[in-house]
């Protein structure tokens, strides 16, 4: 729920403001620059360095795993230690290394490749980065809370519940889950940013299909990210709920006998399968770019390559059950999934052939980037073929849960990593202006390639080893195919020892890279625009490293070739749009300097880390309190920051004033519950950490909203297919797209459980579980309330457009009141159901699905209300209505609010009538 506050807050609460804190970047040698920068190239570099740090972190864990496997049975790790390390290694490599490594390149290159000055929302881009970093820090912290997650990266239920997690690991597990949630917040913001940028900010004349292949691969990746991660977020929210409220009994959502375990696998793999392509797609883009350049030939069948990628991206959402062939799903659905799975391997096959055919008749130079990409294609071919084995269900029945799977996905994933390393060598001269050392690069390749195969090929031989086992002796000895000859009577040990040796070779080969890249920075191998022959895309047409503003003039492809138009001429027409962080005051709005720095992304993400840490140890009975106590603070912040930025008015006074009784009210309720002196004394330190985290978090959000952050939008850009939709509006819509999946996953889980339990007897079951009476009218009343409040938002927009201050403020306030009534009504209903009837969160599946799904909706309403408070304060001092352009902000908020309304239109029948 917290990251929801952030994403929403991030997307729509940042409106206008006036105080100006410089906006110019400090020099690169200054530490401050790296803390405040919002420049996409800086952020890209931060991403790359951070992800390499996590590579080392995950790599050290991998060494520990391989050492443990040197011999069968106990060696250097305990059982719990081994499980933790296997889990953290998987999570770190997939989430915190591979994807962000690719997004470092993407951050740096995509704007350059499409001819944009920066991303659409530079400040949110910085937020993405800092959230990413701090989410990883939180995962690191979890090791110091006793034990990190010991469940495997797939977090299968119900092993992921408190009932089955050893007490020592409970805190750390919760931190791990929250770290993932923070990571998703980062990813979602990033996806919104990239999608908006790529559709709306291309250089003139550059059609969508014309953008370079790396950028295309990133575009498809962010689409998959947007949808897939929302499903994982849903699963994690439900899981967090189980952790906090279902407690030791373990009968919440995923502990439910009504298919809770199966439900987790559905939700996880609906995310998980797209995720494996998410980590691989950027590498495909790198492969295409590098093969083109080093073969001196345009990609053969470029169009088909792109179509194949798009097909795979779409199809990736309908193959997830191939990870579940041995679960309780039925045969017809397995058959469908087998067909789609095999179907998805064919477009990949086409892509590989396109890459190979491009080399033919080329002028192939075997330089380091090319070597890495060639190696990556080899690994991918092996990984892909062994994947087809897994797609054949009968074979998968035996491979499932063995080292065959481990070897398969390491071949595919490492293929991605190796290609990205090739990409790093390829673009290193562009980013640094210096050439790396070619000899060392080649040595790195040879060591890595040999090391990798020595590490993973033996796993195919001893594939009968059960996964995540280190007592592997006694498993069947491998035979040579077609014969009954057993290899090495000694069993599995020697093969695992080979793998361990390979692991060290592979790992240490990266030291060569670190050394090479570092030393080359200080070499005299200075390069010009393009050190490579046959480069095509726009980043090679500017100096290395590119200038701060990316291009010497406004880039344009109007003539069919890249040219730079005179800035002065084209910039005259730059319009001021309310993009990220909004517009300066009306008076200044024609001053054309763009802002490039802000402290708030760092600050806000830091508070998110604090909050995450706090929640990890928050007890159920204290759970809501930090959030409630933060609300008065939020109201006061709006008053204070608003007065500072827009000049003091009575409304600001009223806001600050209202905070006091509000706090008193919450304090009173708290007193009735826990008793103020005793309750506070008993609260553990996590209560205080959460309180600090959420309060300062809301504070930074308000501050960010009031910060003036000016981003000029180019007028000449190519915007198909979103012409006429401003960047912020498109961003909002894209965000709603991911919210559809979030809610959809909640509703889908409900439908799944209900089908599993018997659809028509659902309420009978609920009655057996303690429900006596579940009236329809509170839901109906709330439907009226929400529809009406939607209507008043429409009115607010109309008034704002007409320039009426009173109308705007009144309509917004009425909406706020409507929302308050909605919550009040819901509160009364819940008290009746929960307390009077005793139908509690874990009173069976009907109860948990009802409370959680409508609860998520209520949380959305609360977030909307907080934003409304901000809007009212701003409207009161003249925003939105006094300047016609500005009214759009209300429209953006309206989109969110109407969406929340629409969701309710479905929740009402599903949870009240049917």
């Amino acid at each position, binding site marked *: 729920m917290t990251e929801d506050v952030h994403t929403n807050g991030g997307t729509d609460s940042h409106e206008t403001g006036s105080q100006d804190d410089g906006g110019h970047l400090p020099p690169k040698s200054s530490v401050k620059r790296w803390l405040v920068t919002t420049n996409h190239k800086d952020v890209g570099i931060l991403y790359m360095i951070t992800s390499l740090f996590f590579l080392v972190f995950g790599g050290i864990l991998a060494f520990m795993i391989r050492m443990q496997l040197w011999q069968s049975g106990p060696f250097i790790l305990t059982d719990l230690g081994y499980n933790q390390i296997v889990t953290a290694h998987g999570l770190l490599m997939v989430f915190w290394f591979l994807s962000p490594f690719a997004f470092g390149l993407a951050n740096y290159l995509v704007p350059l490749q499409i001819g944009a000055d920066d991303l659409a929302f530079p400040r949110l881009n910085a937020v993405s980065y800092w959230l990413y970093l701090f989410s990883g820090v939180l995962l690191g912290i979890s090791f110091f809370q006793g034990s990190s997650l010991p469940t495997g990266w797939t977090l299968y239920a119900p092993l992921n519940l408190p009932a089955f997690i050893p007490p020592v690991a409970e805190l750390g597990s919760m931190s791990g889950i929250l770290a993932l949630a923070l990571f998703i917040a980062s990813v979602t913001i990033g996806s919104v940013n990239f999608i908006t940028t790529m559709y709306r900010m291309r250089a003139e004349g550059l059609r969508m299909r014309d953008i370079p292949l790396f950028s295309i691969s990133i575009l498809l990746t962010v689409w998959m990210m947007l949808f897939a991660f929302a499903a994982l977020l849903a699963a994690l929210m439900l899981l967090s709920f189980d952790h906090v409220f279902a407690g030791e009994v373990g009968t919440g959502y995923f502990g439910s006998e009504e298919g809770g375990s199966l439900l987790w696998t559905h939700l996880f793999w609906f995310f998980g399968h797209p995720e494996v392509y998410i980590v691989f797609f950027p590498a495909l883009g790198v492969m295409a770019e590098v093969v083109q350049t080093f073969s001196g030939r*345009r990609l053969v069948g470029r169009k088909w390559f792109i179509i194949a990628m798009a097909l795979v991206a779409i199809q990736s959402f309908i193959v997830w059950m191939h990870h579940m062939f041995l*679960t309780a799903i039925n045969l017809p659905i397995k058959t469908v999934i087998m067909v789609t799975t095999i179907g998805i391997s064919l477009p990949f096959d086409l892509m590989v052939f396109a890459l190979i055919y491009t080399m*033919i008749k080329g002028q192939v130079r075997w330089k380091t980037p090319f070597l890495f990409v060639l190696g990556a294609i080899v690994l991918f071919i092996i990984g892909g073929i062994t994947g087809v084995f897994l797609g054949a269900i009968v074979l998968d029945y035996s491979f499932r849960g063995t080292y065959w799977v481990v070897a398969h996905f390491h071949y595919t994933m490492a293929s991605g990593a190796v290609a990205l390393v090739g990409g790093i060598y390829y673009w290193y001269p562009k980013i640094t202006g210096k050439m790396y050392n070619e000899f060392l690069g080649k040595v790195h390749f040879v060591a890595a390639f040999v090391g990798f195969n020595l590490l993973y090929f033996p796993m195919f031989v001893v594939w009968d080893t059960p996964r995540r086992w280190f*007592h592997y002796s006694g498993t069947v000895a491998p035979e040579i195919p077609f014969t009954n000859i057993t290899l090495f009577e000694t069993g599995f040990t020697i093969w695992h020892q080979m793998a361990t040796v390979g692991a060290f070779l592979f790992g240490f080969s990266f030291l060569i890279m670190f050394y090479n890249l570092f030393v080359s920075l200080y070499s005299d191998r200075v390069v010009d625009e393009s050190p490579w022959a046959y480069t095509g895309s726009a980043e090679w047409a500017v100096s290395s490293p590119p200038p701060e503003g990316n291009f010497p003039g406004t880039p344009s492809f109007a003539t069919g070739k890249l040219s730079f138009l005179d800035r002065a001429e084209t910039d005259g027409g730059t319009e001021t749009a309310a993009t990220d962080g909004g517009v300066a005051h009306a008076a200044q709005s024609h001053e054309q300097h763009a802002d490039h720095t802000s402290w708030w992304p760092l600050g806000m993400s830091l508070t998110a880390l604090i909050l995450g840490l706090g929640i990890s140890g928050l007890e159920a009975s204290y759970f809501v309190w930090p959030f409630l106590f933060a609300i008065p603070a939020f109201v006061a912040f709006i008053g204070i920051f608003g007065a500072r930025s827009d000049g003091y008015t009575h409304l600001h006074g009223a806001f600050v004033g209202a905070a006091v009784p509000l706090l008193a009210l919450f304090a009173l309720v708290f007193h009735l519950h826990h008793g103020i002196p005793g309750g506070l004394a008993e609260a553990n330190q996590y209560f205080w950490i959460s309180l600090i985290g959420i309060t300062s978090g809301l504070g930074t959000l308000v501050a960010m909203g009031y910060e003036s952050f000016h981003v000029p939008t180019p007028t000449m850009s190519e915007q198909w297919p979103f012409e006429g939709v401003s960047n912020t509006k498109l961003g909002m819509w894209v965000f709603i797209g991911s919210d559809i999946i979030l809610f959809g996953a909640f509703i889908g889980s409900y439908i799944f459980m209900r089908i599993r339990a018997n659809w028509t007897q659902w309420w009978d079951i609920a009655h057996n579980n303690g429900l006596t009476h579940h009236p329809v009218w509170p839901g109906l009343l709330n439907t009226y309330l929400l529809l009406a409040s939607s209507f008043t938002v429409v009115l607010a927009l109309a008034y704002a457009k007409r320039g009426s201050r009173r109308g705007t403020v009144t309509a917004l306030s009425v909406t706020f009141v409507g929302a308050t009534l909605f919550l009040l009504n819901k509160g009364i209903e819940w008290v009746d159901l929960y307390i009077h009837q005793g139908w509690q969160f874990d009173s069976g599946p009907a109860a948990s699905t009802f409370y959680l799904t409508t609860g998520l909706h209520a949380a959305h309403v609360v977030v909307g209300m907080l934003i409304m408070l901000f809007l009212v304060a701003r409207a009161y001092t003249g925003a939105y209505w006094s300047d016609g352009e500005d009214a759009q902000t209300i429209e953006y908020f309206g989109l969110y609010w109407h969406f929340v309304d629409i969701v309710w239109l479905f929740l009402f029948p599903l949870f009240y009538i049917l």
Partner: protein
Amino acid sequence: MLGTGITLSSALRHAPVAQVDQTQVNVFDSLYDVFVALGTLIGVLVITYMVYNAYKYRSGGADAEGRYDIEEEDLEGDYDVSRPQRGEIPTGKGKGGGKKLFMSFGLSAFLVLGLIIYSYSLLLAVEDTSQNQEDALEIEVTGYQFGWDYEYTGSGLESGDYDVNIDGVEADDDALVVPRGEVIQLNVTSRDVMHNYGIPEFRAKTDAMPGDYTQTWFQPEKTGVYRANCYELCGQGHSNMHGDVVVLEPDEFRQWYLAQDGTSESDLEFMESDSQ
């Protein structure tokens, strides 16, 4: 999509090819060999082809220090290829190259589909036995942290109620004891977290999920003591979670089984019908 699944699974089920009478071990071994052979062949071919071409069309002349690349040459007319040019729109005059691409695509599609249809028919055979087996020894397997409990469905004989003191057999008392040559039908579930029950020697494997039952079967063809492993991370004891599976000659089995409390001849009817 769903339609396809239902049609395929019901249509092929009655195809003659589905009537193979094989154990899971045979099915797996033969299919695995086919996949390994073809997979290796294709893999080696494609990789060789790629590396060969990358080598054949290599271009020397780059600066040895690696600082500069080769000079771009204008090869227009030499080959029917288009070279990337800086700042171009890449979709311009590119030659499609589509035909060759689709040839190889079609070829591999044909191969893969063939393989899959073949493997699917075997799957149906495997599933059929698992669902429509009347002459089978039915056993309910319940996973727990960290071991397996068995219940012989016919008599209700359970782990803990029996011991495995058989001459010449070294196995724990919580072992599964079965007769050689019979189809053993397993109904698998779990009492706590998710496990996965698998006997690698007999290629039987299925998830053990709390609240759900899944099925698998095997037909042991040799006597001896084998292992049933857990293939799904299930907690701290996962790495060491395995139990014994004892396969006895039918007569020995009969003797052992009838020596346990509460069992009777009638539970063993499945063995009679077989020998006729």
